[in-house]
């Protein structure tokens, strides 16, 4: 790895979003907006029961309606070869049998698609969808987690077995202890863009799709498996997607339905879900009931920690996440027990939502830390410092880097933590009670594999290609930033193409891994390019005989010798002399097998807020979020990403809650008027502070992930501040005014 002046100096140069221009002018194209001749429109009809069988389906009226091209149901759907094996066709993140759309008459959840109506216009499809008449044989459904706890089961596979370090449930014998239950409702990703797909077949063998996915290759594999087609016959494009927050981490049945429908009618087909269907058909953050038992010595050293979680999943798949895992390593504690259970319900399979299980788990753990600190009469920040884990107690390994104490220090300073009183209700401003709270977050710093293709044009323009896409954080900007710094090129000389299976393989965007994975690949590919340029220079003229990349100074137009700037050659000349029109190379990059360090990103969130006891209203005054995410590669996009996560956390803490009417098993507030996400006026000033220290082990840039830790730990910081303000401990999210009114 060549020495990198930029990252070693640790002074990132802020660059603007490379896709900013397209986005502020409305010219960025999203899945539903690709122009295709002869396109037809689909609309899904959902079941009106939550469990049972379709008794009869009458599609005659719909089929006769003006403009209708086809109505697909389980009765006439093309038999997908991948559905016939009985094996999982799409390798989703779950055990079990993914929903096979239009496969048989069984209903697993409310609004499960029972028909796809296809017409020549969207309005006609929507209208004809109202003419499909289904009758059902209803069975007793179960959608209420709390009422089904007796059916809780340990998920399949070794990752989710009960964990024990030291003595089981040792907290019970500690001198000071707490034992509490925490609840978190179903949250729905609700990106601004609706789930959308266009599928277009070329003949019988080739299909191209434009879809809202976080991983074009994962979607390509799913379609290949369902239709038993070679991968190379499937092109998946998703250059821009309008947010996803995890809902694009798998291929959903509606996507398979669209590809199926386009094949059946022999025309391109567009299928866009309605906002209501976004609540029922594309996953959710599972509801959880968690129990924490925590005990400490009287001087505030943790003795034992037990963390149990029970979460919902669908009745046909096991969806799992790392809800309890954070309790195993965040604090130094000799005795830790974790247990994780699932309850199958008549609901669509959940999917990771930003911060995923770690965010849910941190709500319980970090609330409990605050409760125990209060029981100990200790400042909760001091309590955390006393229990800081200097090494990873779960794996017994050193951290690759951990700067949580610096986060504590700078965050406390910025929020004015010293103003905080140990006793609740001690700070007032008129009718309002003021409180301070904090919460810690963490997420694994993973790195996967990516291949990047780079092309140097004679005029010094660089083109980078990778299949990875961008749901918003700024992937292309990060890639440009790294290439610009590695090559010493100005940003406007670099172009990134991505979001298509036409480009070399890249990772799915999820789990805060893209900067580590793709960034490293960009850097390594740039290094390889520089070496190749040196080699070509050696062939091009005696002045560069046997030079190495480090002997050269690279500019956007050509190279010169480090020792003697007058010895130079322009790229066009260099390429001509080597008989090349352009210089292209492709490199795969992946993490070395790394067993000797434990790698995590960390965040610490501080909240100052006010509560109005007469009405229960809460106003957040200030948030300070500190991140230990290694080197910050792209400061502008990183700061935005961080604030966005904090606001997601405020939504989780104060608003987001999908309410199910359990009598019918269907959501009550399935629209953006009743399912609340924060508006601008709800959000106070948010300060983001980065430790910005290179992690020596994660990847060549020394970065760690950011997208998840931005949210993990925010909700408990809010809940803890509410307690500090009011003396009321709210253990069930969201913290709505009715829970606080006095």
């Amino acid at each position: 790895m060549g020495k990198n002046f930029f990252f070693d100096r640790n002074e990132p140069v802020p660059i603007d979003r490379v896709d900013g221009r397209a986005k502020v002018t409305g010219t960025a194209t999203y899945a539903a907006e690709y122009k295709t001749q002869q396109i037809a429109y689909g609309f899904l009809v959902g079941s009106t029961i939550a469990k049972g069988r379709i008794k009869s389906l009458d599609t005659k009226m719909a089929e006769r309606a003006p403009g209708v091209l086809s109505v697909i149901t389980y009765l006439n759907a093309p038999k997908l070869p991948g559905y016939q094996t009985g094996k999982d066709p799409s390798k989703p993140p779950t055990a079990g049998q993914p929903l096979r759309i239009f496969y048989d008459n069984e209903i697993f959840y409310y609004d499960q698609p029972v028909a796809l109506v296809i017409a020549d216009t969207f309005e006609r499809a929507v209208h004809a969808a109202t003419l499909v008449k289904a009758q059902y044989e209803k069975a007793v459904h179960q959608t209420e987690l709390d009422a089904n706890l007796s059916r809780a089961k340990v998920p399949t596979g070794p990752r989710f077995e009960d964990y024990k370090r030291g003595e089981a449930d040792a907290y019970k014998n500690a001198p000071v202890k707490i034992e509490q239950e925490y609840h978190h409702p179903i949250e729905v990703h609700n990106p601004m863009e609706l789930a959308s797909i266009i599928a277009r077949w070329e003949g019988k063998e080739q299909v191209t799709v434009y879809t809202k996915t976080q991983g074009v290759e994962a979607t390509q594999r799913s379609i290949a498996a369902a239709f038993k087609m070679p991968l190379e016959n499937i092109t998946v494009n998703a250059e821009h997607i309008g947010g996803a927050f995890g809902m694009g981490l798998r291929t959903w049945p509606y996507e398979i339905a669209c590809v199926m429908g386009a094949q059946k009618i022999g025309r391109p087909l567009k299928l866009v879900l309605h906002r209501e269907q976004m609540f029922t058909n594309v996953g959710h953050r599972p509801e959880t009931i968690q129990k924490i038992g925590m005990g400490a010595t009287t001087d505030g050293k943790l003795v034992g920690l037990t963390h149990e979680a029970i979460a919902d999943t669908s009745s046909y798949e096991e969806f799992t996440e790392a809800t309890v895992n954070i309790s195993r390593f965040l604090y130094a504690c000799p005795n830790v027990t974790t247990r994780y259970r699932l309850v199958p319900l008549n609901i669509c399979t959940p999917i990771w939502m930003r911060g995923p299980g770690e965010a849910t788990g941190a709500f319980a753990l970090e609330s409990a830390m605050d409760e125990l600190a209060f029981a100990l009469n200790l400042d909760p920040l001091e309590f955390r410092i006393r229990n800081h884990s200097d090494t990873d107690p779960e794996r017994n390994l050193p951290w690759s880097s951990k700067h949580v104490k610096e986060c504590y220090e700078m965050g406390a300073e910025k929020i004015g933590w010293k103003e905080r009183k140990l006793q609740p209700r001690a700070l007032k401003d008129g009718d309002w009670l003021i409180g301070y709270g904090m919460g810690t977050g963490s997420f694994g710093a993973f790195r996967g594999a990516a291949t990047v293709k780079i092309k140097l044009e004679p005029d010094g323009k660089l083109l980078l290609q990778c299949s990875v896409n961008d749901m918003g954080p700024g992937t292309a900007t990060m890639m440009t930033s790294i290439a610009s710094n590695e090559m010493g090129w100005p940003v406007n000389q670099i172009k990134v193409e991505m979001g298509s299976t036409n480009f070399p393989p890249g990772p799915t965007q999820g789990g805060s891994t893209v900067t580590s994975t793709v960034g490293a690949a960009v850097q390594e590919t740039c290094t390889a390019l520089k070496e190749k340029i040196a080699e070509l220079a050696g062939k091009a003229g005696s002045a560069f005989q046997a030079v190495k990349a480090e002997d050269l100074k690279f500019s956007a137009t050509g190279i010169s010798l480090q020792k003697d700037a007058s010895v130079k050659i322009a790229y066009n000349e260099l390429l001509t002399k080597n008989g090349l029109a352009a210089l292209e190379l492709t490199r795969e990059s992946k993490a070395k097998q790394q067993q000797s360090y434990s790698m995590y990103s960390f965040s610490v969130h501080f909240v100052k807020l006010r509560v109005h006891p007469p009405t229960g209203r809460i106003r957040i005054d200030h948030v300070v979020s500190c991140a230990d995410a290694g080197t910050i590669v792209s400061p502008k996009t990183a700061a935005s990403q961080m604030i966005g996560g904090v606001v997601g956390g405020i939504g989780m803490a104060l608003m987001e809650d999908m309410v199910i009417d359990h009598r019918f098993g269907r959501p009550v507030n399935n629209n953006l008027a009743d399912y609340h996400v924060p508006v601008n006026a709800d959000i106070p000033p948010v300060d983001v502070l980065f430790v910005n220290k290179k992690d020596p082990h994660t990847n060549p840039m020394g970065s760690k992930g950011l997208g998840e830790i931005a949210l993990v730990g925010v909700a408990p910081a809010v809940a803890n501040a509410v307690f500090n303000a009011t003396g009321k401990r709210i253990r069930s999210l969201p913290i709505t005014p009715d829970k606080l009114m006095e």
Partner: protein
Amino acid sequence: MLPLIKFILNNKDIATKLPPGMVLLDFVRYHQHLTGTKVGCNEGDCGACTLLVGELKNNEMQYRSLTSCLTPLGNVHGKHVVTIEGLNMEGLNPIQQAMYDESATQCGFCTPGFVVSLAGFCLSGKNASTQNAIAAIDGNICRCTGYKSIERAAAKVAALMQARSSTEPIVFVTENNILPAWFATIKQRLYFLSTELNGQLQPTTAKEWVGGGTDVYVQKHDVMKDASIRFLFDEGGLKGITQQGNRCIIGASATVTDLCESPILQLHFPRLADHMKLVSSTPIRNIATVGGNLINASPIGDLTIFLLALDATLVFRHGEQQREIPLRQLYKGYKTLDKDPKEQLVTISFDLPGAFTLFNFEKVSKRTNLDIASVNTAICLTMADDRIQWARIAAGGVAPIPKLLEQTSAFLGGQVITETTIQEAIAIAQTEISPISDARGTADYKRLLLGQLMKAHFLELFAKAAH
């Protein structure tokens, strides 16, 4: 036969025979292929489809932002419609540049809506404060950026407008290259367009009536497209807020924004701006009509509660016949009205508060903007020295209908305000209401909340006034 609808879309003259009930969003995206305007919810909740609509008012261009998913083509007949594409210039315009420089876009899906709302601020003639620029984006939801970068961009946009003083906004923004130069031609083009319009929009046998569309297009979007519609939004006789003696007369099609901007109301309701900013969001307030809020009969309509406390009187018209009815007698049960379907609401009137009359409105909702109240309430008191001469208090979200608390009001008449009086009034109010538990709160919470908001009325009107 479908009427010919004419308007200007960005810089282009439009004459279309598409159904006048089709929403503007579908027209620009599907028929004009202007896909910069996004579809997020189809219910006016997200702001991704925000457009600007301009019309000639007193020889000045008046632009308003609105949610195009709820606006029928019939409501833009003879007007100027602006999409994000219409704001694009050679290079970025300064609003877009501010958004770009501040990294105020992530996934980018909500971004055009924010840019359009900020352009709406520039064209609004509002004071060039950061606060006003930020208020202009109160109807736009962003799920990625966390809003802070957008606020910074809004502050820059406000700064752009600070040199305007008395210049007409549209002149200022074209002269200063904030918006494309062709905006300067719009006023004259609209004037000529207005001379060509001949009222062809109003079918005699309309089945559906539409005001601003903010409720009816949420309730029955699909039906409306091909329905025969009478468009009330621009009907001359239904507009305007006027004063006759001490009586205020509001046309049924006056919008919430019209109320906010009425000098008559501003004079008589000093806290009007504070009350009205709690009502939904800017683009909805720009099109939601007072009449619509009353007739949709929501038990929690903000304006309904406001007007109940003012004891408003409604005038209905049916052919040549007119009928007057007090608002308090309109609601017979959940969403049932004492109104013949053929009767049309024409005006709403009430006595303007005199020197001894006090008025207050309170609303608690989970979210600051774009939210329906958990409970809202308004009070109107006429004082004789320290004594309440008579009182009217109304509350929403606590009964199947917007509720005038008659017994509580009667009790308060003649009382001196003491803590005991207020406690007794609250106790009586509890006997008059029947809230249910729903997504906006439990029944118990709503009961408690009404009590607290009643206290807030008295605190606001007396304790704070005393300081």
